[in-house]
């Protein structure tokens, strides 16, 4: 059940992936480096959603609000203030966490689907404000051509910065999920009534998880500014939230790296299939249906099951 450290093989995979990611700008054309950066950004976004979705059992239907909030906060700090880049970048996560806290105070009163519905309404309100407030946010145009410091303004610089921040965030999220805080969160997902009965303040714990998820969603938004130098209202439109939910679903939301893999699959599909046909949404839909029917644990869950050492399976079956 629990992952007690990484096995030798997993270390091997991790080292190979890391080496690939580190060396990739040296041999891949710029376009692909940009795509990989996007995968990292969306992967971080999906992983942050999964803190509450997969590990907390919360119906976080409109996670992108925090992503957009992070992006806008960083973009506005960069364009409207003279503060150092680090401060502007950090503002993304912080403002997203604050928004998540405020929205959470309201939505936490409801549970399950009602929580999700209320979150969509409140999130749409935030979207509408950003969309309408032309003088401050640029309205539906968004903000373009944001100036970045030299270190992260080159394609390579922005890529390595994105990679470093994403890896750091993944590491921290992983630690949090394996800590007592994370164990209790998973306990709440499995059995909220019993969690309350052993002395856990369920609502407060979930609220803390929402803040953490919002924070890392915001960091993903700030990273998008570094990668793309733009922000626009669609970043917090509900359809993007749906897409990120789908990433978690496709990759496997009971696995730590599931959402990251899901993001890679979705972005790759979008990039390559849309090059061949305008019906890429159709292909996308078919992939979705296939996953839901045949891979209930997502792609990662499926492969882990396939290559699981026989010993582990025997223990799980024994009881």
């Amino acid at each position, binding site marked *: *059940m*629990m992952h*007690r450290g990484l096995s030798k093989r997993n270390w091997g995979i991790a080292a190979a992936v890391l080496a690939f990611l580190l060396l990739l700008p040296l041999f891949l054309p710029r376009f692909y480096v940009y795509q990989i950066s996007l995968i990292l950004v969306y992967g971080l976004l999906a992983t942050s959603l999964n803190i509450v979705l997969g590990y907390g059992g919360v119906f976080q239907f409109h996670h992108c609000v925090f992503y957009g909030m992070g992006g806008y906060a960083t973009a506005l700090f960069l364009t409207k203030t003279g503060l150092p880049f680090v401060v502007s970048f950090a503002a993304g996560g912080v403002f997203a966490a604050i928004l998540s806290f405020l929205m959470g105070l309201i939505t936490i009163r409801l549970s399950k689907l009602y929580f999700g519905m209320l979150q969509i309404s409140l999130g749409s309100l935030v979207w509408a404000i950003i969309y309408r407030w032309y003088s401050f946010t640029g309205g539906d145009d968004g903000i373009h051509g944001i100036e970045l410091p030299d270190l992260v303004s080159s394609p390579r610089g922005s890529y390595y910065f994105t990679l470093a921040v994403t890896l750091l965030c993944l590491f921290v999220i992983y*630690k*949090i999920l*394996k*800590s*007592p*805080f*994370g*164990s*209790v969160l*998973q*306990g709440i997902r*499995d*059995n909220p*009534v*019993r*969690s*309350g*009965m*052993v*002395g*856990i*303040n*369920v609502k407060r*714990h979930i609220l*803390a998880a929402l803040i953490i998820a919002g924070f890392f969603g915001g960091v993903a938004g700030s990273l998008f500014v570094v990668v793309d130098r733009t922000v626009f209202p669609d970043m917090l439109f509900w359809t993007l939230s749906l897409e990120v939910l789908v990433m978690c679903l496709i990759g496997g939301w009971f696995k730590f790296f599931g959402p990251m893999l899901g993001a890679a699959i979705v972005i790759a599909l979008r990039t390559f299939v849309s090059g061949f046909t305008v019906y890429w949404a159709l292909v996308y839909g078919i992939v979705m249906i296939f996953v839901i029917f045949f891979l209930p644990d997502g792609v990662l869950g499926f492969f882990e099951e396939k290559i699981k050492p026989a010993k582990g399976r025997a*223990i*799980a079956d*024994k*009881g």
Partner: protein
Amino acid sequence: MLKIEGLSKSFDGFMAVSNVSLDVKKGEIVAVIGPNGAGKSTLFNLISGVLKPDSGRIIFKGENIAGLPSHAICKKGLSRSFQIVNVFERMTVFENVQISIMAREKMNWNFFTPSSRVLIEETMQILASVGLTEKKDSVCGLLSHGDRKVLEIAVALGGNPEFLILDEPTAGMAPEETGRCIDLIKGLCDRFGLTILFCEHDMELVFAIASRIMVMTRGATLIQGSCDEVRGNQAVQDVYLGGSEVC
């Protein structure tokens, strides 16, 4: 230690618990008995904060806890087990008990120590005291029914309670498992000085371990008294011979 006065709860007009009074002193083992649907589980849900009472007072250690959320009640030293096993199904036996201790130690705000390294000793102690040491790594969804019922109690013990409520601790157990469970409950009271309130359909078990008994029918208290008083009471015999039998 626990004093209940005029406690009532209705579901859509149906009085599941009506005007119940009960008194439990420190160190006692008190049994609640009554036919199916008498309202025993509902009473326990009210005491432990799973349900909110419509009216009445629940005085625990001199403080009215009626209507408090269950996590607050647990923090005051009252734990419970459930009639239908209600644990963390996807986790192992060890993790189930560990979570309960984490909550007691307020460790749920620890973000950076790996869970696999905390509270090992305390968890193993509780598992040893209920005899689940060997099964510590089994996922609890795969345990036998008897072990699941014992785990149910072990999770409640993780909170290190002074007062323990057990809702039909031996329901569905095989006879030898029942014996083990009786020893366990008695041991908890004798060795750790726990005060216990439980309900049970098995009369032998009730008379074997209860110091006093409260009889409920249709949501109301019939009598509360010593084992002999209850055994000799005409009304009690009517209830038990009158229809819905002990299962």
